[in-house]
């Protein structure tokens, strides 16, 4: 065994200078959101990358760009990074980021993180065998928009007037919105749809409800909206509205209930895929991954603040209950 170790070290000594002499592989990481909201997801990405043996700054260079919610800037950020000749592009933080990357290059492999069904928003046509230079994961978030209405109704059985905050420019939402309307009808809810596509639009939409009778709020899964969750949470708190959110981050920040995928898990997958592509895998050989687990978070403190008694069944269902 000593001999083998010796041999290995000799081999390593022979290879190491060569590796150092060559330029490190580059990963371009473009997020539609911001460092502040998604820093932990970048960390998750790096964790996933590490499972394939790549460590940022050691044997791989990651160029990170944040669009800070300005989705109109994403495309120029992507092209800017393409100039650095990256070996793989991670396009995360919104459905449109992947679409922009897809538009910018047809040769550099792209690992995207999509919120919606990639086949429906036009990223790929086949999940198990994605074509061209794209692969990645989907949160499948909008699939749960209807489920979230049901859960909201379970928490607040008396609620009748529910506001639904959505971004009309999110292609995933527009597909799913009909299901949501149907669900509302089934649940005997009157939906008030609030559309917001800019940060000021959020304020406008939320302020527009002033004076209206609202029993509860549901936030549609949308990366843009998630980016401005603080404002939404403030609004819910100010209006004392029980609300359900698409991700745990809302609840940990003071939101009442969230139901959705654990995003960090999914970003690990993106990191893992980026690493596998650096090692030579073709995007077409990497199936687009869907979430395995969905988690329900309930913030009992918020519930108390709202004067709500969370039904037993919700507690039974909850994966995490914040006191």
């Amino acid at each position, binding site marked *: *065994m000593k*001999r*083998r170790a010796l041999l290995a070290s000799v081999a390593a000594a022979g290879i190491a200078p060569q590796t150092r002499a060559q330029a490190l592989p580059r990963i371009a990481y473009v997020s539609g959101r911001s460092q502040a909201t998604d820093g932990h997801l970048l960390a998750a990405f790096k964790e996933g990358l590490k499972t394939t043996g790549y460590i940022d700054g050691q044997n791989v260079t990651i160029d990170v760009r944040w669009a800070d919610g300005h989705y109109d800037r994403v495309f120029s950020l992507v092209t800017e990074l393409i100039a650095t000749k990256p070996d793989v592009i991670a396009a995360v933080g919104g459905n449109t980021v992947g679409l922009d990357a897809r538009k910018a290059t047809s040769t550099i492999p792209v690992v995207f993180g999509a919120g919606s069904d990639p086949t429906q928003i036009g990223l790929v046509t*086949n*999940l*198990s*065998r994605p074509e061209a230079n794209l692969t990645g994961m989907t949160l499948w978030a909008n*699939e*749960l928009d*209807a*489920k979230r*209405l*049901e859960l909201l109704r379970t928490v607040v059985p008396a609620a009748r007037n529910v506001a639904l905050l959505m971004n009309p420019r999110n292609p995933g939402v527009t597909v799913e919105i009909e299901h949501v309307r149907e*669900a509302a009808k*089934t*649940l005997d809810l009157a939906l008030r749809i609030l559309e917001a596509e800019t940060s000021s639009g959020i304020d406008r939409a939320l302020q527009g409800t002033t004076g209206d009778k609202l029993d509860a709020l549901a936030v549609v899964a949308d990366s843009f909206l998630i980016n401005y969750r603080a404002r939404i949470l403030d609004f819910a708190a100010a209006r004392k509205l029980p609300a359900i959110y698409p991700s745990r981050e809302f609840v940990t920040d003071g939101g009442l209930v969230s139901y959705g995928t654990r995003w960090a898990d999914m970003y690990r997958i993106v990191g893992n895929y980026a690493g596998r592509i650096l090692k030579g895998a073709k995007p077409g*050989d*990497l*199936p*687009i*991954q*869907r979430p*395995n*687990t*969905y988690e329900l978070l309930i913030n009992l403190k918020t519930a108390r603040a709202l004067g709500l008694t969370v039904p*037993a*069944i919700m507690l*039974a*269902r909850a*994966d995490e209950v914040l006191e």
Partner: protein
Amino acid sequence: MKRGLFFKYVMAFVGLVTLVLVINAALDLSFVYQDNRRASIDVQREKAEAASQKVESFVREIEHQIGWVAYPQWAALPVEQRRFEYVRLQRQVPAITELTQLDRNGHEQLKVSRLSMDVVGSDIDRSAEPAFTEAIANKVYFGPVYYRKESEPYLSMAVAHGGRTGGVTVAEINLKLILDVITQIKVGKDGYAYVVDSQGRLIAHPDISLVLRGTDMNRLAQVAQARASEASTQQVAQARDLSGRDVLSAHAEIPALKWIVFVELPSNEVLQPVINSGLRDLALLALGLLIAGAAAAWLARRMLVPIRALQAGAQRIGDGDLGHRISIKSGDELEALADQFNRSAGALQESYETLEQRVDDRTAELRESLDQQTATADILHVISSSPTDVQPVLNAVVKAAVRFCGATDAVILMRQAEEWSGVAHEGPLVSAIGTAFPLNRETAPGRSMVDRQTVHYPDIRSLDAVEHASERAHAERMSFNAVLCAPLLRDGTAIGAIALRRREAGAFTPRQIELLESFAAQAVIAIQNVRLFTELRESLEQQTATGEILEVISQSPTDVAPVLTAVAKAAVRFCGAEDAVIAIRYGDFWGAVAHEGPLTALPPEARLPITRETAPGRAMADGVTAHLPDIEALDPVEFAAAHRMGKEMGFRAALGAPMMREGVAIGAIALRRPEPGPFTARQIELLEAFAAQAVIAIENVRLFTEIQEKSRQLEIASQHKSQFLANMSHELRTPLNAILGYTEMMVDGLYGSLPEKASTTLERVQSNGKHLLGLINDVLDLAKIEAGQLVLAVEPYVVGDMVTTVLSATESLARTKGIGLSATVAPGLPSGTGDARRLTQVLLNLVGNAIKFTDKGSVEVRAAQAGDTFELSVVDTGFGIAPEDQKKIFEEFQQVDNTSTRKKGGTGLGLSISRKIVELHGGAITVESEIGKGSTFKVTIPVHVAAAKEAAQ
């Protein structure tokens, strides 16, 4: 450098050790590999069993969990209760995505989902689904694996609640969550486990992407084989995984689910211990080699040092250091070998020293031999460069003899009959060149020539004083004391000798004797060469002379004088004489006719009687060659004339050879010389040959002159004949003219009328007379022509007039015979110049002949011009003339000999005369004819004939 013993020793040792170690290692590796494989196979099998149990327990656990809600009374619980329990179940089992409660009738009562909204009391009839029927029948039902969105593997599991009212709970299980189970299964370092369903599709694999892609594992041999076989666990197999690596594969089936769990370990991992063992063996091998190498080197060195010393010593001895001795004190065979070497070197040194002496001797011999060969070559060179003169060769021979035979002096002596004299000499001693000595055995050269053997006197003073008196006298006079003499032998006859002389007494060595003999042989060759060459040259010259004389003879057939002069000149030249005379016999006298040389010759008109007093006279008188070597020494009476002439003309010696024809001397050829002395045999022989040639020349001229004289006489006779004929014809014609004239007058009745009978007779006389006159005229013409007396009277004429004249003269004759006569004269013919009368005669003759020899048909005369000539043709349709006769008819007295011609009469001279006349004009007459068809005679004459053409021959 060559591979030495050292290398070989070391290689042998190392090779042996390597062989042993390699065999050991191979056996070791083989056992290690077998053991490892067996162990791995066992582990694999166990792992496969364990893995299948884990996967099964994962599913069974879910089944067990569902069991908590699956009791008969559960259906009776309030819906919220049931929903609560389903939610709780989901909490317990994350893999369950959806739970559905079917009532006893298979109608859907409740559905709780993680993804979609819960549904209560939809009452959808699902009683026909296998999940319901199978679960009712078997309590538990596991559906086939299916894929959501064509990607995620799902399993439907149904558990019956039991009892009469209990329905069925159907759970949709996301099989992606088996991933945790699968990845936990550790096999070796890089081994892994995976699960395939009954269709061979991948359900679980550490690389989830393969599962999501719905990889069909049937393409792997081990999967296809496992699915095909019945047994729940299978033999471990060597196989390949999806990326083509060699793996050790084991599997176990989960019977309830009909899934197969595979456990695979890369073969190289199985081989790792073998590799380790191999490395160990390699290290051992290297160590063994090192030790073997060192041991071999030590041993080889021990062997090699003395061997190297031996090699170095042998090298020095080989390089010529024969005094070197090898010193080895190893006390074994090598020391003995070194001693042997030393002894060999000693022996070699000894023999080498003797050899040197012998080589020196041999070198000296070789040098001498080379010198002698060079001398021989020099002599041969001289021989070849001096083919005509023997003297330079002899000089070279004596020089070489002195140089190589260790003599003071060398002489070549030549024999002349019974004497000998020196001809070439080299050396300081006195020699008697030119002095003749008698040929006897008293001197060394004489003895060697007489005995035809080499004579060797090492000390002349010790010779017998009587027997060798002459030699001793010579020796004393010329102060030499040793002599060696070899004869020059040609065809067994001694022609001379070569002698070596030395002042000091002492024997010549055998080698010197041998050498002298070889010089003698060379001298003979040279002499022989010169003789042969001279003979050849003389023979050639003689032939040339003969050729020249013959040429003169042919050029001068009528005059003998130039020939004889040429003979005289040739005799002087080839006989080596100064003066030659040719004498011719005139009856009993002779006179000189040709002379060559500086001496006075007899004037041509002088005649001397043929007596035996002079050389020519004697030769002619005796018919044999007369040789007078010294006239003054001859009898003054017997040779009185010779004495007289010799004094007058200044010669002392003479040689005369007779010129014999049919045994009679017709002259003689003589050589003269102012000095007395004999002529050589060769001179005599040559002179006789010239005499014979002179005879031939004289004979030739005589014959030629005779023939010429005869032909001249013949010609004169012929002319006489022609003259006679001409005269005779003339003489005959004159009286005949008188006869005819008188006869005519009588017929004309000038002498009164005659009786009928007489008149008829007279007419006959007249007719025959006229015929005779014609004949005489013809003969006269011919005679004139032959005698050269016919002269053409050249004048201008017109061809047309000539033709008209001829036609009018012959018209009556033609009419009488009843044949046609016509003429065709080309228009515009110029007037010609020639003897018109004679030409008319020719034409008349031709037309006459044509009419005469034509019995029916016609005769035509044609005249035309062709260039500078006239062409006159007479064409008839008569008998024709046979080709063989066509030439003859132009000769004198010739007629075509057949009855028809004889019948026509004629002298046969007409055509002959015509031909001569035409030829006198410079023209020609020809005939073309065919028997039975007729003839065409054509006369071609120049338009203008030169005037006064003399009669032809």
